[in-house]
């Protein structure tokens, strides 16, 4: 075998190994990205479940104040039920946003009830839920970053070729509902000065 033949064979061997290696790297990378999204969602789900466990306690504390707006409490509980019955990420995200909106309204309205605001249980629940909301916001951002990385990868060449072969589809982000972005309408009861 001549040196030239050996060199050509070497180029072909390493060339094909490089192509296979590169395709495998892309394939494994895409699988990892898909799994990252699942993991990021699971990490959100943990926080959402913790928040939904706290919600009935919050509602119960608020209900003890007879004049507290029942409509908001009912809305919060209905949204919670919708979350548990939701079977897709998009539906869960939607229900979760509704719960967030309702909680925001409850806390905003509580400003009108000094006794409720001073209630130790309420204060504890408020602190706990606020902490969970903060964690949720960060993990939602992390989830959206994961989805964004994945969506970019599966549309860019050469990953798009492998992604197409694998039948990968674009994922939806965990967006904030329009309702959640809106300011909470608070009717402040100002003391009367006579």
């Amino acid at each position, binding site marked *: 075998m001549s040196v030239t033949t050996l060199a050509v064979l070497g180029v072909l061997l390493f060339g094909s190994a490089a192509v296979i*290696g590169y395709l495998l790297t892309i394939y494994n990378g895409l699988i990892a*990205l898909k799994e990252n999204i699942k993991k990021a969602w699971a990490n959100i789900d943990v926080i959402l479940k913790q928040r939904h466990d706290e919600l009935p306690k919050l509602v119960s504390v608020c209900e003890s104040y007879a004049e507290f707006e029942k409509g908001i409490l009912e809305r919060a509980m209905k949204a919670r039920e919708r979350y548990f019955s939701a079977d897709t990420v998009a539906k869960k995200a939607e229900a979760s946003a509704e719960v967030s909106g309702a909680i925001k309204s409850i806390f905003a309205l509580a400003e009108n009830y000094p006794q409720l605001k001073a209630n130790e249980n309420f204060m504890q629940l408020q602190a706990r839920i606020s902490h969970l909301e903060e964690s949720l916001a960060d993990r939602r951002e992390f989830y959206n970053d994961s989805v964004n990385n994945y969506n970019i990868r599966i549309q860019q060449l050469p990953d798009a070729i492998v992604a197409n072969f694998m039948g990968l589809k674009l994922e939806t982000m965990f967006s904030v509902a329009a309702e959640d972005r809106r300011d909470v309408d608070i009717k402040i009861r100002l003391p009367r000065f006579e």
Partner: protein
Amino acid sequence: MTSNREGDLAVWALMGAGMGVYWFFKGFRELKVKRTIQDIPTSRIATGAVGSLVEIKGAIVCEPDQLVPAPVSGFPCVFYSLEIQKLVRTKNSSYWKTIDWIYSDKGFRVDDGSGADALVYAEGAEIKRQGDPAEYRVNSRDLSSMPQGLLLVLTLNANKLRSFKLSGSSWWRSEEYRFLERCFYRGETLYILGNADSGIKVEKRRKLSFKNFLAARKMAETDPALRKKFDANRDGVLDPEELERAAKTVGEQLQPRDGRVEKPLPKTKMIFRKQDARTFIVSNMKEEQVVASLGWSSSLKIFGGPALAIAGMAYIAWFLRGAF
């Protein structure tokens, strides 16, 4: 008949071919790490989830009294790694071969401004630093002339060193050593990618000491409750096997917790440490710089490796042209 020079070149070609194949595969590993860095979003320490491959960015926080002097440069730092290399001489050339590593064993804290911090044990991590490491060279006949800090670190870690001996080499031949120091300093911003624990399982048990083993064995022999508990065959006496098992079980409970692992503070939400063969990168470079350096390095290895391997094999084929 081939000349000596051709024979030497053939040995080099064989080594080059092997190195080329190694680089080729290493290049793909680096490409994988590069993509992983690009694909993993940055977590906030306070609210991020722990687990495998967590990425954080933050500044090193440390009290001034917790700083340690770097062994070569003497600068106060929070962490140092010391790479010990030996000069290997061949017929026509020489190269530095890494023979040992020493790491400062204290963890350091990284704060990303989220209201919590991460405790980092960088031992075994892939440390990427901008700039060249601090360097010190010494001959094995002259080890006592080393800086005091370096001498102290080598003495304290003498039992961990596999190849380097402070006593120097044999009297008839001298060796050249090189010490490369890489440090992280207080206030420096780091990029970290690795496995993060929540801090609950950080306390490890030390290996059972002989002293505690003996104390535990005595306890098992004298305490009726323990005797009854470990008497597996119910014959009323502890056989040697039963006694050993009892001593090990009781001895482990007598063991103090591993002093090397610092107790995490309530503010510490993540603990990074090397685990198995998983990726663990600690760098003072920005994420983009780490990605760029890995990109260059992987491309060079994926393309350069095969080129070297093919050239090496081609030379060997030419060298052996008349042999078969």
